[in-house]
C-alpha cells in the first residue's frame, strides 16, 4: 500500500521544477577522447619546443661578466682589515682588474651581488617602518616598534630610517676605468632611475619640507648605527637624490627573495666615445671602496656586468626547461598513442 500523497502540505517544500533546481541546465559535457587528447599533446610539445628554441636564442644574445671581489687581489687586505670590528668606520680602497674579451654591445647594466645574505628572513623583513619612509612626520619622530632595537640610538633619538633593513644597507661603491692605450678613461655610470617607478614616487617620500632644507627636516633624528653618513647626505652630487628617496636606499630596501641576489647599481651612459655602442673589449680597472663586511655570515660579494633582452638577463633555466618539457610531452604523447592503439581503439573496454 502506498501512502496517499494528494495533500499539498507535505509537498510544500518540494523544490521548484525549474531547470536550475532540478539540475537540468543546458550544458556542455566534454570527455577525454582520443581525438582531442592526442593532438593536444602533440601540439603542446610543438609549442614548448618552439618557445624553448626562441628563448634559448634570445638568452644567448645576452652577455654577462661576473667578478667575485671578496678577496680578489688587493681587496683581501681590506677583507682582513674589516675582520677587526673597530676598523668598521674606516674606508678601504682596493683595485681589481677585469678583462672583457668580447665587447658588450647595447645597454650595459652594473649590479652588485651578495651571496648567503638572507634578506628574506622574517624578523629582518619586519624590521622596517613603511610609514616613516612614506614621509609621515609622526612616524619620523616615533618609529614603529617593529624597528626595535634599531628604532632609537643610545641617546634616545629616533633613527631615520629605522629598522634592520635600512641599517644593513650596502655601502660599497665602484668606479670603473677603461684602460685605453695606457691612459685610464672613467666609465660614466648613470646612477639614477635604478629603482621602480612606484617605489621612487609613491612608496618612499621625504617628509614635507616647506622651505626647510633636508637637514633641518631630519633634525632631531639620528642616522642608523652602521651608516657613515646621515640619510640626507647620501648623495653629495645630486640634492634631489637625498633623504628617503635615495635610489640606492630604495633598491636595497626592496628585499630579495633568495640568499644569492644582485641589485642594480648603475647603467652605462652611452653618450660619449668610446662607450656609444656599449662597453668595448679590453682591460678595466675597478676601484672599490670596500666597506661592507661579509665574513660574519660567510658571504661573498661580486660585481656583475650584463646586457639585457626583453626576456631579462642571462638565465638559462626557462629555455632549457621548455625544451625538456617539450621532449617529455612528446614522450608521453607517444606512450598515450600506443596505449590508445592497443587498448582503447576498438572500444571493447567500453562494453559493460
Amino acid at each position, binding site marked *: 500500500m502506498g501512502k496517499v500523497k494528494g495533500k499539498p502540505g507535505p509537498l510544500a517544500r518540494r523544490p521548484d521544477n525549474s531547470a536550475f533546481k532540478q539540475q537540468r541546465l543546458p550544458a556542455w*559535457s566534454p570527455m577525454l577522447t582520443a581525438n582531442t587528447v592526442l593532438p593536444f599533446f602533440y601540439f603542446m610539445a610543438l609549442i614548448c619546443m618552439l618557445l624553448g628554441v626562441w628563448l634559448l636564442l634570445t638568452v644567448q644574445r645576452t652577455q654577462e661578466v661576473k667578478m667575485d671581489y671578496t678577496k680578489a687581489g688587493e681587496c683581501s687586505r681590506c677583507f682582513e682589515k674589516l675582520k677587526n670590528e673597530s676598523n668598521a668606520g674606516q674606508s678601504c680602497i682596493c683595485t681589481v682588474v677585469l678583462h672583457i674579451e668580447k665587447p658588450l654591445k647595447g645597454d650595459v647594466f652594473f649590479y652588485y651581488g651578495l651571496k648567503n645574505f638572507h634578506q*628574506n628572513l622574517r624578523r629582518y623583513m619586519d624590521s622596517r617602518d*613603511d610609514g616613516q619612509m612614506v614621509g609621515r612626520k609622526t612616524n619620523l619622530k616615533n618609529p614603529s616598534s617593529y624597528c626595535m632595537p634599531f628604532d632609537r640610538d643610545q641617546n634616545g633619538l629616533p633613527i631615520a630610517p629605522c629598522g634592520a633593513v635600512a641599517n644593513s644597507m650596502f655601502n660599497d661603491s665602484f668606479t670603473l676605468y677603461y684602460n685605453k692605450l695606457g691612459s685610464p678613461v672613467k666609465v660614466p655610470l648613470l646612477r639614477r632611475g635604478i629603482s621602480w617607478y612606484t617605489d621612487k614616487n*609613491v612608496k618612499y617620500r621625504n617628509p614635507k619640507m616647506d622651505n626647510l632644507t633636508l637637514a633641518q627636516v631630519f633634525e632631531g633624528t639620528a642616522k642608523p648605527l652602521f651608516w657613515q653618513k646621515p640619510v640626507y647626505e647620501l648623495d653629495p652630487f645630486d640634492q634631489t637624490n637625498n633623504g628617503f628617496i635615495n635610489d640606492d636606499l630604495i633598491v636595497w630596501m626592496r628585499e630579495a627573495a633568495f640568499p644569492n641576489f644582485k641589485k642594480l647599481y648603475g647603467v652605462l651612459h652611452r653618450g660619449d666615445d668610446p662607450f656609444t655602442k656599449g662597453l668595448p673589449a679590453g682591460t678595466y680597472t675597478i676601484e672599490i671602496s670596500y666597506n661592507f663586511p661579509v665574513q660574519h655570515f660567510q658571504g661573498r660579494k661580486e660585481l656583475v656586468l650584463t646586457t639585457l633582452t626583453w626576456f631579462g638577463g642571462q638565465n638559462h633555466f626557462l629555455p632549457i626547461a621548455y625544451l625538456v618539457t617539450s621532449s617529455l610531452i612528446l614522450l608521453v604523447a607517444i606512450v598515450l598513442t600506443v596505449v590508445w592503439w592497443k587498448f582503447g581503439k576498438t572500444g571493447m573496454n567500453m562494453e559493460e
Partner: protein
Amino acid sequence: MYTALPILALSLFDQDVNDRWSFQYPQLYSPGQLNLYFSKKAFVRCMLHSAYSSLILFFIPWAAMHDTVRDDGKDIADYQSFALLAQTSLLVVVNTQLCLDTYYWTAVNQFFVWGSLAAYFAITFTMYSNGMFLIFTSSFPFMGTARNSLNQPNVWLTIFLSTLLCILPVVAIRFILLQIRPTINDKVRHKVRKEALPAPTPHRKPARRISTRKSGYAFSHSEGFGELVTSRRFLLKRPLKSRPVLFATTESPLAQNQPQHYRTITEEQDPSV
C-alpha cells in the same frame, strides 16, 4: 575566496551523466556505495598529487627567478614579486584543474571559474594599489608589485610552464586509465556520446489512466510506490516500454532539458500539461 567558490559550484552543479541515464544504469551508484571515492588509496593518490604540484609551483618560479631582472634592468627577484608569481601560478593551476574535473559545464560553472580568476586579479591590483598603501600603510606593503612584475613576459612564461607541468600529467594519467580500466561512469558517458538518450522513465500515472499491469488496485486509489518496488523494475536494464508514454516528448537532448516536461514524482494530476 578565489578557490572556494569554483569548487562549491562544481559540487553543486556537476553531473557526469544526466538523470535519465542515471535511472537507466543504477550501477553508477555502486562506486559511491563501495566507498571507492574516499578510500585510503584515493587519499594517498591525492597527497602524492598535491606534493608533486607544490614542488612544481615552488621550484619552477624559484629557478626561473633566482638570477633574473626585468627587461629594463630593475629588480624582479625580490620577495614580493616572487610571492605574487607563486600565488598567480597556483591560482591558474587550480582553476585549470577544476576545469578538467568539471564534466557538466553550465553557465554557472563558467561564471564561477572565470569570475574567480577575474576577482583574483581585481583584488590583487586593488590591494597593491597606491591608494590602499597610503591609507593602510602597514597592511598593504606590496604596493606596486603587481604592476611591476606582471608586465614582464618572463613571469607569464613561468606561469605557463608551471601550469603545463602540473596539468599535463593529470590528463595523461586519466587518459591512460580511461583506455585501460574505464570505470562505470566512463562507460556510461561513452555510451551517452554514442547513443541516443533512453526513453523517459515511466511516469507514475494518475489514477484515471488505464493500468496495463495486472494489479489489484482500485480506480479510486492513487498508485503508490509499493508495487513498483516489489516488482523490482528498478533493477531492469532495458527501458520500460510496457506503458504508453503520457506526453508526446521528442528524443532530442535539448527537449530532455526543458523544464516544461514535468516528471511527476507523486500521483497528482500534472497541472502544467
